[in-house]
Every structure is written in structure tokens, then in C-alpha cells.
């Protein structure tokens, strides 16, 4: 198809601002799907995604639409909805020429919308402002238009007012996509360059890549090369998602579709990589490619030691479907055999954890998430460490560096005080304050990632009564005054409880942790000291008092059956504990670091 008749676009929106509903409505109006099919929200494929109201995997749908007597191919590319998937979002946006910026008329601009809108601009997209849910009683389209104008420079007169739910204004919006968004450049005669913007693993076909052809074209049975990884494949199937898979023989310049090439392992495909013709390769790959960066790490141990092989099999399967997730065998004196896992962010970690329990039915003990640090040792070498236990002896450390992010928070002006206090307590440095409107403000901070991954978002939601939204972007590693704190249970250091923290927070964090531990470890027959140590020096202590009395005073014939039940229950309660020395530590104790309540 002539590139002039192609439009590639995405929808950028905050969770619940109506992205999926709008997509469904467009599919309906263009006749791509029926109303009944729309109910199933085709763009979100996994059960988990729908429940959490987020989209984990991007995919693309091709809509064929007649406008003013001419046929158009509209490719709607879905973007992941969370900050953890920043890189994937950027690749999906790179596959488009335009983006619909959807804002809820009753909620206003949120941090994530801003972040993704900026990302769309950075990747060369033309933006269309869309105000959704204008039929809600609480809708304030004028205020929202003002915010959009202020933050993103889209004039308030240019915003489209729609209701995706009722269908109001959707046809006009589709017309605007054709009229106002630019078509792809016609580079069909150049050497082939196609961007992989997403991939999924299918049980029957192996890996399915979602691609956008920027120059040249792709044909079935063509020999192709992945420029980033250097691997070669033969294309076995090309097609469009309509939204079902519809095979085609060729995907031309400017078009979007899927590709199957007998690729077994998802790890062999990297989002952002460029595909070229192996017999006539392009000189350069498309710009912007890098490997996804794992920012958060956590240890997973099977709740039951015999589940170790089961856990490994589950991780194998998860890694097949999620190239951003990694795992490596790890063992801890306290917790036995388990795995060190890497994630893009905290939400990504929670998703993996939920899938483990839901799809694989394995209970896990998980240690506190930690970020990846850089250590410069005395000999000048710099290495990345993602577990406190990997930290060399302090005498060998020349410098410790931690990752920093640019953090954006959008909130109501009435909650700004609480948020600033929170940010200050988390070592965040205020860079910019920007009033979006009379009532809403955007705060920009430089923040240590470690302070953000921990529990920042939950606390932020609390202090802002649920209104504040945030987004962050990794900016780089910087030297920091960090220390490792060890937790000693009955004088024995428990490696799985160690933390790397800023020196100024060490005592408070350590104390908070042992108070939580004190509450979650049952009393024993002896007193158990809980201590926080930095390099052998104890900085805080709590004590779990011994229990003194636990015996049934009267037990005669008539009580035996009842007592046996009680004793069995008591015995069951002791299970699912890990022994450290002579102390039984329940699973919940290891989770207490994650627990944000006081």
C-alpha cells in the first residue's frame, strides 16, 4: 500500500483513563470487530493484565477504513502502561508517527501521561490531545484542556472531546488521525530495516515478533538478520493482527505486522532490534536500541524446599515469555536454595510473583527488593552488584554508587506539603515546581532509585489521599554514602535480611526492620536478641522475650480427643518456618522488610 494511506499511531493514557475502551470503540467503528467481540477487550490478552487494569505486552491491530472514498490502513500500536516498561514503551512509540494523548475529563493530567507524552515527542510523534469521559457529571473539560496546554503545549482549542464509552466523537477522532497525523516516509526502495517493538511466545509457533517496516520490505521465506544479536532466520510467516492473525506474503514500507521465523526462545529476540535482509543488509540498524535494564532485584526461595525444581521450571517458563526477567541460582545459609531474580521495576516484580502463584501454584519466600549498585574497588575495578551479600569487605571499597532517577509527581496543591516532606525524607532533591493549573502541580525531583522502589508509591498515595501520580526515569549512577546493614537474629547474621542503605537512614531503617521482625517471630523458649549491625558494630537492638509458660495444666481421659486437635494445630503452626541457628523464622518475617505499615 502507498504509504500515504497508512497511519501508525498509539494511545498514551493513564490507567483507567479509557485507553482500552477507546481502542475497542475504534475497532468497532472501523468494522474491524463486532460489538460483542469488543467486550472482551482484545488488546489485553492475559487474565492478569485485565485484572490489574494494565497492559503488560504491547501488540498492534490493523484496521482497514474507507475515508472520503479512499482506503486507509490504520495501525494501532498498544503501549505498556507502566513506568517499569519505559524502554518497551519507547520502542512502541518509535514504531508510530503519531499518538493520541488521552486524559480523563474528571481526573486531569497524570504523571505517567506526561512521561509518556514526552517520550512520544522524543520519538518524533505528532500528538493529538483527547479529553475522554466528557459525559461524566464530574467532567471538567476546560480545566483539563488548560492543563494539557500548559504541560504539553497542545492548544486547548485543538483537543478532541469524546466519550469512548458512548462512542461520542470517535468518528471525528478517526478522521483527525487520517487528516492530522503524518503518514510514514516512503523508503520502500531502500534496504530493509524493520523495528521489533514487541514479541510474545506462542506454544505452537515459537516466538512471534511485532514489527514495523521503516524501509524496504519483508517477504515470507526471506532470509533475515537480527542486527543487534547477529542471528539469522528464515521468515516462515508474515501477517497482520486484524485483531486475529491474518497471514500475508509481504509487509511493505511503513506497515506494521507480525513475523514468525522458527525462533524458539524469547531471549533470542530483543525489543528494539532491527531486522534486515540477510542477502542485502542495511548499513546501519535503526537508532535507539539497547538491552532492557534490570533495576530491581530480589531473591525467591521456595516456601517448601522440595519445590526447588518446580520453581526452576516455572522461572524457565516465565523467562521464555518475558525477556526482561532473569534469574540465577542462589543459595543462602538462612533460606537454602533459591534464585536471584532481576526485574525492570517493582511492578514487574509483583507481576512475576503473582504469576508464580497463580499459574504455577508455588509459594515463595521473597526477600526485600534491592536496586543494583556499582562498586569501585581499591584496584580501580568497577563492578555491578545486585545483592548485599555480593558487597566486598568495606576495606576493599573505594567508592559505592547508586542509581538515580528523574522523578515526576503530579498532585493537588493542597497535598504538596506532605509530599515534599516525604520526598525530603527519601533523599530526593527538588529540581522544579510547575503549576499545571490553579489546583494541580507537577514536582520534579532527582531521587535515589532505592528510595523509590521500596514503598514510595504506596506512601505517596497515602499522603495525597490517592490523588498523586508519579513516574520516573533512570538517569545514571552516582557516588553515595552507602552502608550495608546486617541483621543478627540470636547473634547470627541472616544474610537474607541484609540491606544496603544510605548512612543517614541506616539506623532508622534497621530499627524499623527489627521492630517488624520482633512482631513476626514467635516467642521461643529463650530470649532472642535482634540486632542491627554495620560492619560488626551494633547500632540497634530489640529483644523477643522468651515465653515462660506453655503447658496444659489438666489433662485427663475426657480431654484427650480435644487436646490432640489443639496440639496438632500447634504443630502445624510451627511448619513453614526457616531455622536460623535455633530460631524459627516464619516466612512473614522475611516479608516484613516489604511491609510498609508501622
Amino acid at each position, binding site marked *: 500500500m502507498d504509504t500515504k494511506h497508512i497511519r501508525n499511531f498509539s494511545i498514551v493514557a493513564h490507567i483507567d483513563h479509557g485507553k482500552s475502551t477507546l481502542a475497542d470503540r475504534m475497532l468497532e467503528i472501523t468494522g474491524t470487530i463486532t460489538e460483542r467481540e469488543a467486550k472482551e477487550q482484545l488488546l489485553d490478552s492475559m487474565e492478569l493484565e485485565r485484572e490489574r487494569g494494565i497492559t503488560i505486552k504491547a501488540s498492534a491491530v490493523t484496521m482497514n477504513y474507507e475515508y472520503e472514498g479512499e482506503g486507509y490502513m490504520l495501525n494501532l500500536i498498544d503501549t505498556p502502561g507502566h513506568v517499569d516498561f519505559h524502554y518497551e514503551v519507547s520502542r512502541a512509540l518509535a514504531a508510530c508517527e503519531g499518538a493520541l494523548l488521552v486524559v480523563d475529563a474528571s481526573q486531569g493530567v497524570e504523571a505517567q501521561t506526561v512521561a509518556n507524552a514526552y517520550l512520544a515527542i522524543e520519538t518524533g510523534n505528532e500528538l493529538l490531545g483527547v479529553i475522554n469521559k466528557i459525559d461524566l457529571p464530574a467532567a471538567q473539560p476546560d480545566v483539563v484542556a488548560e492543563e494539557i496546554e500548559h504541560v504539553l503545549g497542545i492548544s486547548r482549542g485543538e483537543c478532541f472531546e469524546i466519550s469512548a464509552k458512548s462512542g461520542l466523537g470517535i468518528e471525528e477522532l478517526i478522521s483527525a488521525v487520517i487528516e492530522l497525523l503524518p503518514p510514514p516516509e516512503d523508503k520502500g526502495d531502500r534496504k530493509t530495516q524493520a523495528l521489533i517493538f514487541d514479541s510474545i511466545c506462542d506454544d505452537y509457533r515459537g516466538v512471534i515478533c511485532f514489527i514495523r517496516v521503516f524501509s524496504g520490505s519483508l517477504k515470507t521465506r526471506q532470509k533475515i538478520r537480527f542486527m543487534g544479536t547477529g542471528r539469522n532466520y528464515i521468515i516462515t510467516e508474515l501477517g497482520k493482527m486484524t485483531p486475529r492473525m491474518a497471514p500475508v506474503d509481504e509487509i511493505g514500507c511503513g506497515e506494521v505486522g507480525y513475523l514468525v521465523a522458527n525462533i524458539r526462545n524469547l531471549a533470542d529476540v530483543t525489543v528494539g532490534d532491527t531486522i534486515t535482509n540477510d542477502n542485502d543488509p542495511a548499513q546501519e540498524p535503526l537508532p535507539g536500541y539497547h538491552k532492557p535494564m534490570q533495576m530491581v532485584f530480589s531473591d525467591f526461595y521456595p516456601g517448601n524446599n522440595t519445590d526447588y525444581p518446580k520453581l526452576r521450571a516455572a522461572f524457565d517458563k516465565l523467562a521464555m515469555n518475558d525477556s526482561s526477567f532473569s534469574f540465577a541460582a542462589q543459595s543462602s545459609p538462612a533460606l537454602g536454595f533459591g534464585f536471584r531474580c532481576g526485574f525492570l521495576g517493582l511492578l514487574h516484580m509483583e507481576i512475576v510473583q503473582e504469576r508464580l502463584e497463580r499459574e504455577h501454584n508455588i509459594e515463595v519466600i521473597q526477600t526485600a527488593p534491592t536496586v543494583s549498585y556499582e562498586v569501585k574497588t581499591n584496584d580501580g575495578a568497577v563492578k555491578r552488584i545486585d545483592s548485599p551479600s555480593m558487597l566486598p569487605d568495606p576495606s576493599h571499597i573505594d567508592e559505592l554508587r547508586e542509581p538515580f532517577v528523574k522523578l515526576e509527581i503530579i498532585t493537588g496543591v493542597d497535598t504538596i506539603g506532605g509530599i515534599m516532606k516525604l520526598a525530603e525524607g527519601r533523599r530526593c532533591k527538588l529540581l522544579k515546581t510547575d503549576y499545571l493549573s490553579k489546583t494541580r502541580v507537577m514536582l520534579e525531583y532527582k531521587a535515589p532509585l532505592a528510595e523509590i522502589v521500596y514503598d514510595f508509591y504506596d506512601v505517596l498515595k497515602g499522603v495525597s489521599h490517592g490523588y498523586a501520580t508519579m513516574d520516573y526515569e533512570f538517569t545514571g549512577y552516582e557516588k553515595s554514602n552507602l552502608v550495608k546493614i546486617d541483621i543478627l537474629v540470636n547473634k547470627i547474621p541472616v544474610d537474607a535480611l541484609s540491606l544496603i542503605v544510605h548512612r543517614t537512614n541506616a539506623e532508622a531503617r534497621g530499627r524499623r526492620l527489627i521492630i517488624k521482625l520482633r512482631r513476626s517471630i514467635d516467642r521461643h523458649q529463650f530470649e532472642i536478641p535482634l540486632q542491627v549491625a554495620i560492619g560488626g558494630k551494633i547500632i540497634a537492638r530489640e529483644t523477643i522475650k522468651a515465653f515462660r509458660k506453655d503447658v496444659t495444666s489438666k*489433662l485427663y481421659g475426657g480431654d484427650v480427643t480435644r487436646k490432640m486437635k489443639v496440639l496438632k494445630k500447634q504443630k502445624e503452626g510451627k511448619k513453614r518456618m526457616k531455622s536460623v541457628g535455633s530460631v524459627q523464622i516464619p516466612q512473614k518475617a522475611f516479608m516484613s522488610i516489604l511491609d510498609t505499615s508501622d
Partner: protein
Amino acid sequence: MNAAMLGLYVHIPFCQSKCRYCAFYSEVVCERDTVEVVSAILRDMERYDVGDVETVYIGGGSPSCLPREELYSIVDFVSVNCGKVTEFSVEVNPGQVDEEFLKGLFDRGVNRLSIGAQSFDNSELEFIGRRHDSAAIEKAFDLARAAGFGNISIDLIFAIPGSTIEMFGRSLDRAISLGSEHVSAYSLSIEPSTPFGRAQVEGEIVKVDETADRAMYEMAIDRLGEAGIVQYEISNFARCGFECRHNLGCWANDPYIGVGPAASSYYNGVRFSNVADVAAYVDGIGGGESVIAESHRPDTKEVACETAVVNLRRRKGIVLDEFKSRTGFDLLDIFGDIVERFVRNGMIVHDDAAGRVYLSKIALPIADTVICEFANF
């Protein structure tokens, strides 16, 4: 080797008044016609082959609150029908006895008396709702001796809210100086269904803290032991040869017949208990029907676990040969790991030469945490 021995327990479901801590099934005596209940109990006993019974225990409730002739009729039934009895105990409330009554019991074959003293401190007695004072206990004891009883037990309760270690020490001393052969000392357990339970929820009474409770318990073990009244079970102490044979049967996991409302039995391999309602019991027995409310036949594994659990309450613990012959299981085959673990932390002693596994002294105050490990396998 101890062969299994059959016991008989008679539950008298009446009290003069209900004590504030008591969770046992009983009704207030004056509100009930006791005659029909006692005749139901007699008919209940007739249903069993009681000729092999070796130990008898009449408890409650307060057996001593029954009209004398009625209690005597039960005692007489036992004396006539149970020819092999070696120990025959009756529980009495010190406020309900006189010379004639006690003489009557003794003459009819009762050879052991258990006096529900609970405390020798009058303020404590009043607090827990007893109707007698400490002088009444001493008087009852003297009358019992005079009536001929050479085997008298005294029940004590410690860790009563407001109690101190000194107060309990004085009660122990009085029990010792009276010269009793046997003492049972129970830590007060506050059950939710009792007036004490409700008062605790309301914050009107505060439980004695664990450390003091434990100190009182350890004091009982030490002080009674020094006086020659040696601990032989978690809560029971006796001069040598005066251990309660009836209850030793329970802790050996021997069979016993229980008659009366709410009484439990372990008979022909089945554990069952009678309906906890006087009227239903009387009607059931009268109509020739079953009065069993609940029953359960433990399987061989359950029997082994029950045996281990009750045996461990004895200071002599589990006798390995006896355990094997009774349950068919070798204790160390089924619980070897657990025994070894507790031996290592000093909670259990495994006396290889004597073939016994028993709780160490430090395990006694926290025995349930050890014993619960034997509750299943």
C-alpha cells in the same frame, strides 16, 4: 510391663454453686431433682461389664453436694459389683463434709479422698467463688483422717489473678503441714465461657503474667519435692506409692468407662462422651437409648500419638517397651528425629539404659511446645 487396666469414672453433674472459673459441666443442685439422675447413673453403670474395673473415681461437679444416701447408693453399687477395685476415690468439697458423711464413705469402701481445697488464702477463696474458708479445709482434712482415710489428696490452684508467689507458697506449706499424701496443683486457666473469661475480656481481671505463673509452678515442684511429695505428672505430686492409680491409667492410655452426663469413655478402642445435658441424659437412659453425643475410634497411628502425648505428661515419660507393646510402633521409628532434636536442646531426656524418653525439668513449664510434635506423624 504394665498391662492395661480398666478404670471407672462417675461424673456427678451438680454443684452447690458454680465457681467463677469452672468450665466443667454441672448444674446447681437445689434446682434439680437429683434422685432421677443418680438412678440414671446406676442404670448407666449396669450397661457395662464393670467386674474388671480396678480403679474408681467419683468426681464432678461436687459429689459431696448430693444427698448422702444418693451418693452412698453409687458407692454401694461399686463395692458390690466391682470386685477387683484397688483404688476408690471420691472428690469432696471441704464445705460440704462432716464426720458421719466421711465415715460413711470410708465404711462403704472408698479408700482415697480428694479435697477440693484450691487455696488456703481466704481472699483467694472468696475471689474464685468458693463457699468455704481455709479453716474448713483443715477441719475436713482432720475429719477424713479420723474417718480412716490414709490416702488424701489436696487440689490447689495457682496463678489466680491478684495472687502472689508468697500467697501460693503459704498454701503449699499448709498442704504439706497437714500431711497430705497427694497434691494436684493447677495453673488457673481462664476459659472464655466462664464468668472469669468474661471478666477478663471486660478488663476486670488481669491474668497473672507468665513469669510469675512459671515461678509458682516451679516452686510447687521444688517445695513439694523437698517435703517428699514428688512430682509424677505435669500437675500431680505424691508421696511414694500414693500416686493416683486411676489417673495413671489415663496417662498410660488405658481404657476407662465414664458414666453420668458429659462423662467420657475410652472403651473397646472407641473414645466417646455422653450428652452434656442432665435431662437428655436421664431421658435417654430411661428410654434405653444411647446417650452418646460424640464418638471417635482412633486408628493405630492416632493411638500411638495419643499414647505418646499422654505418656509424656508423666515424669517417667514414655517407656519404650511398653509403648511398642501397646501401640505396635517403635517410638524411635516414628518420632526418632523429633526425640533427637529435643534431646539436643535439652528438652527431652532419652535414657537408653532404662528404655525411657521423658521431658526434662526445663521442658515442664512449656511442655505443650514439645508434646505437640508428637501429635501426628
